[in-house]
């Protein structure tokens, strides 16, 4: 769904169009859930909080004014604040070792075992990141936000987000044994814009 369509759905939802709000939910719920699930330690909490994010969004929607602010960034700022409130209330630190452990149905037990090992390695590598780096990875890769939306969600500059992303990727690659022969700087030539941050 493109930005123009989202903007129109938001405008319709602001006028009380329930169907438009349902479309917004359908578009964003997996991304929001993924972000939330990466920040809390069990699927039940992730489900409750995702629900709450959309309820809060519904109530705050009349006050949302686009004016250059991407809706995705605004929504994920709500999601981020909801998670922060939850963690504060529950006095729990977010853990990346998610409680879900779904096996893949179409593969054999050996493949499943290898996949589990791989997933556990990714979980450990994510756990080694700083809080900010982990949040950027969750917003950019798990929720699929643009750098601009992630910046809006975290209340940071876009350049800061790219820098955090660059360092997070380098750390993940090291942890997972995916380092390139030419070093991480070689990768920064891509369109992520991380090169300037890395050299800054």
């Amino acid at each position, binding site marked *: 769904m493109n930005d123009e369509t989202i903007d129109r759905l938001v405008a319709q939802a602001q006028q009380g*169009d*329930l169907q438009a709000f349902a479309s917004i939910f*359908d578009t964003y719920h997996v991304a929001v859930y993924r972000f939330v699930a990466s920040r809390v330690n069990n*699927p039940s909490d992730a489900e409750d909080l995702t629900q709450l994010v959309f309820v809060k969004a*519904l109530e705050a929607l009349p006050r949302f004014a686009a004016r250059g602010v991407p809706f995705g960034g605004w929504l994920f700022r709500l999601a981020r604040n909801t998670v922060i409130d939850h963690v504060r209330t529950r006095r729990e630190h977010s853990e990346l070792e998610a409680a879900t452990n779904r096996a893949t149905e179409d593969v054999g037990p050996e493949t499943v075992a290898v996949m589990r090992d791989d*997933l556990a390695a*990714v979980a450990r590598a994510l756990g080694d990141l700083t809080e900010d780096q982990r949040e950027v990875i969750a917003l950019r890769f798990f929720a699929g936000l643009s750098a601009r939306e992630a910046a809006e969600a975290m209340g940071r500059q876009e350049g800061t987000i790219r820098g955090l992303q660059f360092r997070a990727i380098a750390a993940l690659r090291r942890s997972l044994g995916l380092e390139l022969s030419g070093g991480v700087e070689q990768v920064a030539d891509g369109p992520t814009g991380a090169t300037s941050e890395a050299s800054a």
Partner: protein
Amino acid sequence: MNDTAPFDGHADEDLEHALAAYASARLSPDRWATNRMRVAVIEHARSGAPAPAVGGGLERWWGRFQRLGFVALVAALAITGGSAAGVAASPGGPLYGVRVQIETALLPSGTDRTNAQIALLTERSDELTEAIKDGDQNGAGAAGDAYGKQLQQLVDDSVSNPSGGPTAAEVAKQRADLMTLRAALERQLAHLLTIAKPNDTAAANLENNIAKTQAALDTVDAKLAALPTP
């Protein structure tokens, strides 16, 4: 949201794949969770209630209870075939209202919505017919009420105007949906008039729904007449 992947270079494929696999396996809601969230959010939007607090003991337990209730009902309905759950979720049964609520909340929001709504309206009409045939006044009353609500929602959704100046394609789509709806309403009206004749006990309920269906047809006709010509 941005469709551009954060990684574009070939060198990043392995890491991108690893993160995507992790997100898919460990961070994605299953179908049931998606349905539960959708039902809760859309019902909340419909009721206009204030946001509940999450984190307190009672609210958390209520959330769990709702989840268990939803799973139990859906699982029970999935294996009905004349079972107790099937009876309970039939018109007049204690779970009928919940079933209608869930079916309504799970309606798709995209282009298939009108057809899905018409299918639900037809189901309510069939339930009403069956209850009348069985002489089940409670069932006829419940199905009749559900029919009226479903009809109202269908008409409200179909005649609402896209904001911000609809495009020609949207107007054409709305006209096509309204024509489909009009044909379905005519069929429903003819059916209701047929089953109303030999029956006395459900007469008031039927007359009420016949009047509502006729009014819905008038609303659709008025909307069709008001649409800009292509």
